[in-house]
C-alpha cells in the first residue's frame, strides 16, 4: 500500500511526467498496465477504475500511443477524510511502439474500470511461418 502511494507521489514530481501533462484540473494518474504479445497482435490492459467511458481517449500519433481518461468522483462537501489512498484525477500514459502496427485496426473495450486494447501487428511485423517443402 505505502509503496503504491509513494510511487504516485514520485511520478508527479518527475520531469518526464510533468512534461507530458497537458491538461490541467487535477492530478495525473499513471494506470498500471499489462502488455502481452500474441502471434499477430498485442493486448494492452490498463486498470482505470472510476474512469468515465465518455472521457476515454486513445490516440496513435506516429509511433506514440496515448491512453487518457478522467476519473469522475464527486467529492462531497463538509466531509473529513479518514483514509485517502487514491484521488480523482486524469489517467494518462503514453508508449512508444517500436514495431509496425495496424493503426486502423486497434480495438478498445472498457468494462468494470479496465481498458483493453487489441493492437494488430501490421502485415510486415507478423512472424511468417515458412513452409518447408519436402524434396
Amino acid at each position: 500500500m505505502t509503496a503504491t502511494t509513494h510511487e504516485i507521489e514520485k511520478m508527479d514530481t518527475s520531469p518526464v511526467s510533468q512534461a507530458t501533462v497537458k491538461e490541467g484540473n487535477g492530478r495525473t494518474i499513471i494506470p498500471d498496465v499489462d502488455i502481452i504479445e500474441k502471434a499477430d497482435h498485442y493486448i494492452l490492459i490498463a486498470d482505470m477504475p472510476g474512469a468515465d467511458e465518455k472521457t476515454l481517449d486513445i490516440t496513435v500519433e506516429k509511433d506514440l500511443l496515448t491512453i487518457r481518461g478522467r476519473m469522475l468522483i464527486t467529492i462531497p462537501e463538509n466531509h473529513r477524510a479518514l483514509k485517502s489512498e487514491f484521488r480523482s484525477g486524469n489517467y494518462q500514459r503514453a508508449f512508444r511502439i517500436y514495431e509496425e502496427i495496424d493503426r486502423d485496426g486497434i480495438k478498445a473495450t472498457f468494462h468494470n474500470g479496465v481498458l483493453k486494447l487489441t493492437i494488430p501487428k501490421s502485415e510486415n511485423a507478423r512472424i511468417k511461418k515458412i513452409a518447408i517443402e519436402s524434396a
Partner: protein
Amino acid sequence: MSIKDLIPSRFGRKEVPVRRIDDPFRSIFADFDRMFDRFFSDFAVEPLSTIRGFSPRIDLVEKDDRYVLTAELPGLDEKEVEVTLNDNLLTIRGEKKEEREDSSGSYYYAERRYGSFERTVPLPAEVDADKVKAHFKKGLLTVELPKSEKVLKESRKIKISSE
C-alpha cells in the same frame, strides 16, 4: 543500459526502431512516463518475497451523518465482491482474476496485480447496519454507512452544549 537510453526522444535523440526484447527498459513498448521512475527504482531492487498481490486502495470520508467508503476494484464485478459489517468492522473480500485467454503470450509489462484480497476497516463510530448501502460502478465500490441514531443523538447534544 547506457544513460542515453533514459533520455526521451523529444530532448533531441533520434529513436531507432530496434526490437530489443532482452532489455526491459527499451522494449517494443517504451514507456514515456515511467522512464525516470525506473531509473531510480533500479537502485532499490525488491526481493521476490515482497511482490504484492492485489489489494484495493480505499478512501474513507466522514460526513455529519455517515461514513462513505470507496474502493478501487478494477476488473471485478459486483458478484465477485463481498462486503460484510461486523461490530463496526467493515470487510471487503474478493478475488481479482486474470483472463486466461489474455495471459498466454510474452509480457512486456506486467504491472497489474491479481489474487484474492481481504481488507478490514474499523469505523470510528457505530453505524446502522440495516441502512448500509453498497454499489459498484466502473470498477469502484462505494459503501454508504449511516451513523446509528445513538451516535447522531450524542453528536447533536455536543453541538448544542457548545453554543
